[in-house]
């Protein structure tokens, strides 16, 4: 792998990790509010 390809590869991997972290954080927040809404409903 050339240095340029390595930079692109690492950049992509970092972007993907951030995306997964964002999705997990978003889901956590969503689950929190879903729980609240369901508790309020009952």
């Amino acid at each position, binding site marked *: 792998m050339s240095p*340029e390809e390595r930079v692109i590869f690492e*950049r992509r991997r970092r*972007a993907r990790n951030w995306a997964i972290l964002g999705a997990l954080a978003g889901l956590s927040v969503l689950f929190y509010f879903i729980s609240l*809404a*369901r508790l309020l409903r009952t």
Partner: protein
Amino acid sequence: MSDVTAASMGGAQASLDASSLAGASEVRDWITLLKPRVLTLVVYTGIIGLLVAPVALHPVLAITAVLCITIAAGAAGAMNMWYDRDIDAVMRRTIKRPIPAGRISADAALTYGIVLAVGSVALMGLATNWLAAGVLAGSIAFYVVIYTMWLKRRTPQNIVIGGAAGAFPPLIGWIAATGSVEALPLVLFAIIFVWTPPHFWALALFAHADYERAGVPMLPVTHGARETRRQVVIYTVLLVPLTLVPWLMGFNTWVYGAVAALLGANFLRHAWLVWRDEQDETGVSLTKDMPAKRCFKYSISYLFILFGALALDRLILA
């Protein structure tokens, strides 16, 4: 700064710029796998299903339900692109999709689709009810297995039966809110089901060369353009009275009935123009299928306005 250092820094900067662009385009590719243009209609009709339901869902749960419908439809789209990658590679309309273009591997697309499908169904079940989750799972399976894997390459009736997959969102929205199935969401399902053939066949009339190249037995390929035009008219004639059912059954007022009748009359006019298009003795259009292109465009606006009128009428007047 020496020339070598400057050149090396310039190279690194160029590489960073290229990698930023690569990152952005990669994100775009993953979004493309979800078929975002198709999602617009799915989200819209799903929201309408929620709005017309007699039970008001908590806003957080309603947003979650719409999110689940959207993700599930996107997941089905990704699995469709995974299965259809061979025909996508020979159709002009689809050749630039991420899998045939080699930007995303087929295995990665399939994994992505499965993870999103399972996640959206589980989330729907946890947030609303398991009947809605079950119907959501059924709609994904219908689109991927019944339509994509079974019907699409075997019969010109592919989009008639497969059209049911796109008709699920209002039904799922309603079930998410109420936990039960009633007549109105089934009528909404039927409207989208009967609307799909004239919508898709209008598209197939001007894109049939692509389908022919890919060996997909769309109606214009197997039965010719003339028969396809006739079928567009038949299904539009069936559709218009069906759109009046919510008014006739008392779910909506005459205002909706009038809007549906006017919209339907215009759809019939478009279908008539498609049928009467100038054509040679084999049925090939001499106008580059202009009436079919107009009919296709109108069919999209038609469904948006019809469902919007139905929801507004029910929320404000009914």
